[in-house]
């Protein structure tokens, strides 16, 4: 972790709050399935590995499987056919599913192993059974949000609670961002000797937040004491 003193903490905080994009679920599923498949193979593919693009043909299949898993995941337990125990213990996305009666290898395994001379594992990565989605497919963003949440913890069972908590988190983030923006602006103005503008900015900050001075970093707080 970087501990460099010249890192701008205000800008870093602001950046973190605004840099929230995550990979899509289908990409997560593809990579994790490939990683698990490779681990099961027990040997390095090295130069014998297929070209990176060779396994992408099955991505739509993986995406469909992920969508199905997510849709099933949001249903009430009574409607869920998925065996929760089959989910990965690590909380990672499951490998693409297969229909009963299909060959044991999941699509990703086929794609990766097919061009390779390595022996194929006869025990495919455990894939949870997939229920036929009863719901209309949710918007992509909602799927990604849900996927991101499931990455760190199982989603709450109460959808209303979840929504309320998410709203609260967003509101807190917005407040923090606004404060950080004031601080970034103040620091830059002071650093550049634009004290008149800095004083006006401080007045705006104080107007918006009664405890503005307490929120300032030490160096800015010392300067702020000199400003009425």
């Amino acid at each position, binding site marked *: 972790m*970087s501990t*460099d003193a010249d890192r701008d903490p205000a800008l870093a905080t602001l950046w973190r709050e605004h840099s929230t994009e995550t990979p899509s679920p289908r990409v997560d599923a593809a990579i994790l399935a490939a990683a698990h498949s490779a681990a099961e193979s027990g040997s390095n593919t090295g130069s014998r590995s297929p070209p990176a693009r060779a396994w992408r043909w099955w991505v739509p299949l993986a995406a469909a499987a992920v969508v199905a898993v997510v849709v099933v995941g949001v249903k009430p337990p009574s409607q869920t056919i998925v065996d929760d125990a089959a989910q990965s213990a690590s909380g990672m996305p499951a490998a693409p599913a297969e229909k009963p009666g299909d060959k044991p290898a999941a699509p990703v395994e086929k794609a990766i192993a097919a061009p390779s001379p390595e022996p194929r594992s006869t025990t495919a990565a455990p894939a949870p059974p997939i229920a036929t989605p009863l719901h209309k497919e949710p918007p992509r963003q909602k799927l990604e949000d849900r996927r991101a949440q499931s990455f760190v913890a199982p989603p709450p069972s109460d959808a209303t609670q979840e929504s309320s908590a998410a709203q609260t988190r967003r509101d807190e983030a917005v407040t923090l961002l606004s404060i950080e923006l004031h601080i970034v602006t103040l620091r830059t103005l002071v650093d550049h000797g634009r004290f008149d503008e800095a004083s006006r900015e401080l007045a*705006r900050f104080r107007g918006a937040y009664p405890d503005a001075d307490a929120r300032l970093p030490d160096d800015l707080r010392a300067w702020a004491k000199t400003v009425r």
Partner: protein
Amino acid sequence: MSDAPGEDDEKCMLAYARGEAAAFDALYARHRNGVYRYLLRHCNNAGIADELFQDVWMNVIRSRATYAPTARFATWLYTLAHHRIVDHWRSTGQAKLVSTDADETAGAEILALAGSRGDQPDVRAFTGQIRERLNTALAALPPAQRDAFLLQQESGLSLAEIAALTGVGIETVKSRLRYAAARLRAGLIELREASADEH
């Protein structure tokens, strides 16, 4: 930034090389967001970022048996990502990522950023403006400055590690970071002033 950059990244990678799939899961969970955003901010296209992101991690998977913890895992991982974005730019004929330091001639003001003065901004809209302004300012940075900034913000690497990764000196990295931060802050100040004018 990595969610929880662990000191045991290297151990996890070695465990994965021995066949422990769960170790890869841990590594992926820690570093997926940072690597993805690093690539996304460079190419500004989610589809391309997805492709590059897959390539990077597939490279990790393929290289597992030859991985040697001579440096931090994060350094190695972001080196792969850095090389991948350079390759992408070369293949598409775009600007080189690492060139001379001519990109540090900060004379040209890159932040010709028109303020979004449409609706009366509530806090949420303001947040959107911040995000938009940051992204616009970042996209306008010279590639080497953007690279240094993203590596610092998303990877958590030290200046020395960023310098080694990008093949330049620490002072050059510091210089790039200073310019990048100044330009980003300038963009934010414009936004703040525009917002204040509206009130």
